[in-house]
């Protein structure tokens, strides 16, 4: 869903995501369409508000990148401190996932075949393949040679027999 006019300010959270959240929060409650629309816009506005505040907090710190801590401070200063404990749970989960992923990739490196060995195996395979190709090529060449020789022999014996048959046909020799 690319922003149609290319104008960044037209970006919002997709309606479907908001609808889903409303439904989960207020099951069995009907919600008017214009109310939903307003929620979408409020959510967008909220994100701008927090990120703007977090950005300022970030600028005041010596950091260049907005960190989770900056966001948390922004929430606090704008009166959304009650969200902080739940938001921190997300952070915890992020770290857990990142940790798992790092462990998984290092486990793979340790249990698998080390790179040097893989390279060696690769070289071996290439060498083998080259050899097979060479052998194949040589075989084909030999076969061609043999076939050519046989053809020559066949032709030679054929002309020999015709020669023996009639001398007037000497001229025919030149036609071979």
């Amino acid at each position, binding site marked *: *869903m*690319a*922003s149609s006019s290319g104008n*960044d300010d037209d*970006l919002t*959270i*997709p309606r479907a*995501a*908001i609808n*889903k*959240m*409303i439904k989960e*929060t*207020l099951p069995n*409650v*009907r*919600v*008017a369409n*214009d*109310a939903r*629309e*307003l*929620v979408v816009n*409020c*959510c*967008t*506005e*909220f*994100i*701008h*508000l*927090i*990120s*703007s505040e*977090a*950005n300022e907090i970030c600028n005041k710190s010596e950091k*260049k*990148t*907005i*960190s*989770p801590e*900056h*966001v*948390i401070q922004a*929430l606090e200063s*704008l*009166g*959304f401190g009650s*969200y902080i404990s*739940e*938001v921190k749970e*997300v*952070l915890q*989960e*992020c770290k*857990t*996932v*990142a940790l798992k*992923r*790092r462990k998984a990739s290092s486990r793979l490196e340790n249990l698998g075949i080390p790179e040097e060995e893989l390279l060696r195996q690769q070289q071996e395979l290439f060498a083998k393949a080259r050899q097979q190709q060479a052998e194949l090529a040589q075989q084909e060449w030999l076969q061609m040679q043999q076939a050519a020789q046989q053809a020559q022999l066949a032709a030679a014996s054929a002309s020999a027999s015709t020669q023996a048959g009639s001398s007037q046909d000497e001229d025919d020799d030149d036609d071979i």
Partner: protein
Amino acid sequence: MAAVAPGSGASREEEGTGGDAATPQPPAPTSAPGARLSRLPLARVKALVKADPDVTLAGQEAIFILARAAELFVETIAKDAYCCAQQGKRKTLQRRDLDNAIEAVDEFAFLEALSLDY
């Protein structure tokens, strides 16, 4: 311009969220950090943050928690608005319920501009 937060080591993650709003990221698949991580498409959240010209860089984790905060916000304002509807003895949430909630809650003052064209 979002950067991958140091140590979160995931060009894959970056891609997922930096899918550049071409498709909104679906609710987190089971292989990803639990559905609880966010119901909002992270790529879109990131795009919204980047839309602010003053913002230079935002880390991946910051985006995650901002998305979660936005979720909580939606839940909160929806519930507050519903209270207003119930007070009005209605079962359908109307726009005016949201307007009332915005007016009633101090922290929602930043939304007053949205509520004025009513």
